[in-house]
């Protein structure tokens, strides 16, 4: 007779298990609540060990999000989340790396890193909570704000500059996975995050995510105008075409076309002594 017992399989992790006990600083009704909910749902769906996930952000209301998850996190400085995440992923390819932040963090001060992260294609998933405003600094225009928005006294006649089109830029810059969701539909958002994490390479998830405090009209506007539209294509021409017709509220996975993710090269090993020997001078 064999007396070994069956070890019960550990209970699967639930979305709650990926959530920290810290109370968010966000305003009641802020779209960001739905995003942390969607992220934890996605992590639960993937059943990723909490210690193998790292969540990087910049500065802004939305960038506070890593602290509300139970995974490792780095709340960096304004605009630099993507390079920090890239360094982490390249140095530690075994980790799942998420990046999140706002439209100001990502497209204003962080615009250059956004461009180069799209090109570089390190395997990180970038979730941008776009509320077309700088929430954290109390309501100035962001790159995605309409040219004629006069809600900020810093730009009393409106920013006067056409809104930044993140998806078009990402596509032009070479991103290999591009999606858009609405925070008011966390199920679709969670599914996109799952797809983004599964995608090998850089994935952009652009989330229409209302700021109830400084853009009080957004919640209604998004609800009324958002429409599920896109099924993934791998054809850039088709994707550009969709964006030319985009009203800004289309959601879905716009584009997915895997190419090798950016990684450290794998080469034959050597020793430090062998390297140091390269300095030796041959005697005559």
């Amino acid at each position, binding site marked *: 007779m064999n007396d070994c017992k069956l070890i019960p399989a550990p209970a699967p992790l639930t979305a709650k298990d990926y959530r920290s006990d810290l109370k968010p600083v966000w305003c009641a009704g802020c779209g960001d609540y739905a995003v942390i909910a969607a992220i934890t749902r996605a992590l639960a769906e993937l059943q990723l060990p909490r210690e193998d996930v790292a969540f990087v952000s910049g500065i802004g209301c939305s960038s506070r999000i890593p602290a509300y998850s139970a995974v*490792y996190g780095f709340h*960096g*400085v304004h605009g630099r989340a993507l390079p*920090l995440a890239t360094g*982490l992923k390249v140095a530690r390819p075994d980790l799942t790396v998420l990046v999140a932040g706002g439209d100001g963090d990502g497209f204003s001060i962080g615009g250059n890193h956004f*461009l180069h992260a799209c090109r570089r294609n390190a395997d990180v998933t970038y979730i941008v909570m776009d509320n077309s405003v700088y929430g954290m600094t109390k309501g100035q225009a962001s790159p995605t704000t309409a040219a004629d928005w006069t809600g900020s006294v810093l730009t009393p006649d409106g920013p006067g500059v056409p809104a930044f089109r993140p998806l078009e830029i990402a596509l032009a810059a070479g991103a290999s996975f591009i999606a858009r969701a609405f925070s008011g539909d966390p199920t679709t958002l969670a599914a996109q995050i799952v797809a983004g994490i599964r995608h090998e390479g850089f994935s952009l998830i652009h989330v229409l995510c209302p700021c109830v405090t400084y853009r009080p009209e957004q919640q209604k506007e998004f609800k009324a105008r958002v429409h599920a539209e896109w099924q993934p294509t791998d054809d850039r021409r088709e994707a550009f075409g969709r964006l030319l017709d985009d009203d800004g509220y289309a959601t879905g996975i716009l584009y997915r076309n895997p190419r090798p993710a950016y990684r450290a090269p794998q080469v034959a090993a050597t020793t430090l002594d062998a*390297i*140091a020997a390269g*300095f030796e*001078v041959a005697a005559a």
Partner: protein
Amino acid sequence: MDPSLNPQSVSIVLCGSGGAGVMTAGQMLLDAAAAAGLYGVMSRALGPQIRGGEAAALLRLANHPVEAPDDAFDVLLAVDWQNIERFAAELPLRADSLVIGDPAAGELPAAILRAHPRRAEVALQALADETGSRVNMVALGLLAELIGLPAEAVYATLAAALADKGEAVVESGIRAALAGAQVVAALPAVSRLPTVAAAANRPVRWSLSGNEASGLGALRGGVRFVAAYPITPATEILEWLAPRLPPLGGCLVQAEDELASVNMILGGAFGGVPSLTATSGPGLALMTESLGLGVASETPVVVCNVMRGGPSTGIPTKSEQSDLDIALHGLHGDAPHLVTAATGIADCAFTTQWTVQLAEALQVPAIVLSDQAMGQSRAVVDALPDPGFRAVRLTAPAGVEGYQRYAVTESGVSPMAVPGTPGGSFVADGLEHAPRGTPSTQAAHHREQLDKRHRKLEVHDYGEHWALLEGARDAETAVICFGSLTAAAREAVDRLNAAGTPVRLISLRLLAPALPLAFAAALRGVRHALVVEQNHSRQFLGHLRSHYPLPVHTHGYHRPGPVAIRPGEIVAAVRSLLAPVEAPVTVED
């Protein structure tokens, strides 16, 4: 050095316009000297052109380890004189220096003639044409013979260097070198270097630049992730590291800018991999915001800052010690971090490696200062043993109950959970935080975290490596310096001691934090101090004054780049300090 021989050196400039190949010939001369068992150092002076343009190889060869420039050059050989005025100030000559020119290349420029050197004319180009080779090979042969290098070392070096150009090129090169050597008999003599012991008895010699040495120190310390953006004069650190990291399991990422590179290494370090970048002043300026993030989040990273002429774009190809202020104080807020400085070309390896160990042990960003004069000069030195410094981080084990990333400890260092450690999840944060890492605006949290971050640097035992204490250890006179000036200061101190004026040398390797006790001990008994530095605003003296009590009789001797500060000047400045009434004019203060 063979102990039976007196230390002896010869300093040579080989100059000419772009395309004349003076750098190649200079490098061969250094290599030939090394092959012959000598030591030496070679630096480069270049005109503003991107490529080509006037250039000078500045060599000092010796029968003992040498890194400092001498007071003047013994020999200047010009294959032509194109635009030499542009850096004539960097080429001091004495009346007994020998200047060799090709009459076909025109008159000696006024800037050279001002020193009234001895002159000789050699038809260098004609000899090159006759031998079917290039003028730089003629110069090589001439100079080697002039200072007494064995011909076989020259030919072997030449053959090895030109091997991939084919046998014909090697042969004509040797013919040209021989032709050059043959004219020496007709030239005025200069001091020749003594012959050296047979190869079998010599320690292994290395030839390396300061930038390569920095790279070696990084690898030996355990750095396995590098992200960087190219910038003169730091790029060679990166270029040396890039192909050498992958076979050690690491890698280098070329970033889109310095804002990205410093954040990439913060990411790598957060992931548990010792990480480094290299840059120069403008790049360092772009990194300071994120270095502050490293301070607040207690993430160790190392920045090699190879200084060049400033401010702004300044003089990118020339040396200066003017990034000390930004290295010490360039971060906003109260942001204690480490600043170290290499004390010489070979020491770039030691100091970088030590700094990697310190940064990791203290979980703090560190800036290692080097400069163009060290970074882009190449020295022949005894092989550098591994001093054994290693990145060892205090990590948190798996499953610590109620883990607090920023726990307030006596040492100030708190165990860091590396991602992948179960139960260790925390959020590294640049916001002020409670011990758990959660953001806090509370006065008590701010105070205890500021105290902790300050304390960990203050209470660490830096051992004896914080400074080089040399010369007459109980002398009442001290020369205090840091960085690449150490070699010249050491030579000055040696000369003074040899001449009966006891002087001690204090060269700081650790610039921040300040170590008041160690410095006071090093300074015990000193009544006169000369603080030497290569910048305009006396940044080092200002730093010393703000942190240390100095002898009342402390003077600064300083000058910006690009003209090197030479041993003889320091000797004169010390003498003037000790006899201020006689010759106060030589002390620049």
